[in-house]
């Protein structure tokens, strides 16, 4: 579904992303991990066609992102870092807007389905600015899901959530995961352990690990933190 081949993003002398290659297929939930500044958001933005790679190729469903941005964006649901939203719009107004630009046909029905899917029923009559952080996060998720995309790219969907909200968002993601590919960037290792089948770790823009979650846990103990610390403190010239 997604294929990155030797993708680099260079800012001046700095390699924000350095010759990164991986693939993600349908039905996979992939934890995309790395320390701050490792290049996770840059990679996600390149998949979305928001930033152009300096080198390499990115394909979604076999189509080059660079030359098929509009088509590809119809297939992707994207939750950017920081969950930017229009706070002065009502929840349904915002979802109607998102539905209409992504070409959803049965708008009214789809909005209600998505509101139900992310558990926003009690708050859907409010302006987005009036919602708590957890509900804002659900609005962001609803916006990414409104057109029932094949691929979901979620950049830190858990940031700022309390433990109860984490459990809620986790269960919503599980519900929708069956027929989609999901790339999930987060610093919360317990969420990766609870949700993901596979883990990709990058450090200083380079791929340092691309393994099944079970394999990592088997090798580095029951907590993913140890595996994360192991790979992100490695010399980045050698990926495993």
């Amino acid at each position, binding site marked *: 579904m997604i294929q990155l081949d030797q993708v680099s993003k260079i800012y001046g002398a700095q390699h924000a992303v350095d010759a990164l290659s991986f693939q993600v297929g349908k039905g996979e939930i992939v934890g995309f991990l790395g320390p701050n500044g490792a290049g996770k958001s840059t990679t996600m*933005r390149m998949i*979305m*066609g*928001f*930033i*152009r790679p300096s080198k390499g190729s990115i394909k979604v469903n076999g189509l080059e992102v660079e030359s098929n*941005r*509009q*088509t590809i*964006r*119809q297939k992707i649901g*994207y939750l*950017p870092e*920081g969950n*930017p*939203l*229009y*706070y*002065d*719009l009502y929840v349904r*107004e915002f979802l109607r*807007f*998102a539905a*209409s*630009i*992504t*070409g959803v046909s049965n708008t009214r029905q789809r909005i209600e389905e998505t509101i139900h899917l992310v558990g926003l029923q009690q708050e859907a009559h409010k*302006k987005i600015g009036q919602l708590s952080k957890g509900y804002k996060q659900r609005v962001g998720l609803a*916006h990414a899901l409104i057109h029932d995309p094949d691929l979901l790219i979620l950049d830190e969907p858990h940031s700022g959530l309390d433990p109860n909200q984490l459990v809620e968002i986790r269960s919503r993601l599980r519900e929708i995961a069956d027929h989609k590919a999901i790339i999930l960037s987060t610093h919360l290792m317990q969420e990766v352990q609870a949700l993901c089948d596979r883990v990709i770790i990058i450090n200083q823009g380079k791929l340092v690990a691309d393994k099944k979650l079970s394999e990592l846990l088997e090798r580095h103990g029951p907590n993913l933190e140890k595996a994360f610390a192991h790979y992100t403190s490695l010399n980045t010239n050698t990926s495993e």
Partner: protein
Amino acid sequence: MIAIYKKEFLQFFGQIVGYASIALFVLLTGLYVWVFPSHSILERTILSLDPFFTWAPIFLILVVSAATMRQFAEESAEGTLELLVTKPLSSIQIVLGKYFAAISIVALTLALTAITYIPSVQALAVDNVSLDYGPILGAYLGLMLLGMTFSAVGLFTSILLRSQVVAFLLSATINAMGYLGFELISEKRQFAGYWDFVINGMGFKAHYESISIGLLDFADVAYFMAIIVTFLSLAILIIARWPNFKKL
């Protein structure tokens, strides 16, 4: 594009600044039309809306700058521009959706004054004297063209900046310079003779006044259209290069 248009419209009227800027326009023009003795039509013997058409362009700059200041500056500061440019939309659709929303706000503001001022002034007539509707129609058309030009400039300045306040000030300054600046410069005695005419003709005001007297000249319309297309094209080019374009 229609989705962006609707969103912009909803957002403008979802904030107090939207209603306040239109109310301020009606209030300020109302003061000149009815209250200030040196301009009030109640103090005049000629039936016309001249005080309104003289002052409306100045106050229109405020409404338009308030409507356009947030269009890109706010999206950029709040991060929502990333939402917009990662949607299946072209930069043309994004810019034009926002532009048409801005000029609809201008049209709505002008329509509000038309439905209140024209019947009120007509009601003042004695001996069945009728308003001369030709120049009034021409002046409203001129105001609309000015509003469209101000909107294109305002939208462009909003792309350049992250701060809405600075975007408002820059838009108001450029538009005020475009409207009044050339006329003021042309009045310098050094330009008397030939250059005063040329310099004055470069500003918005000369073309607005030409249309306002009821003469719809293609050259005047083309002048406004050229400015509008230039600023919108620059805006489209910048959005197409986003986020590589560095904001001020």
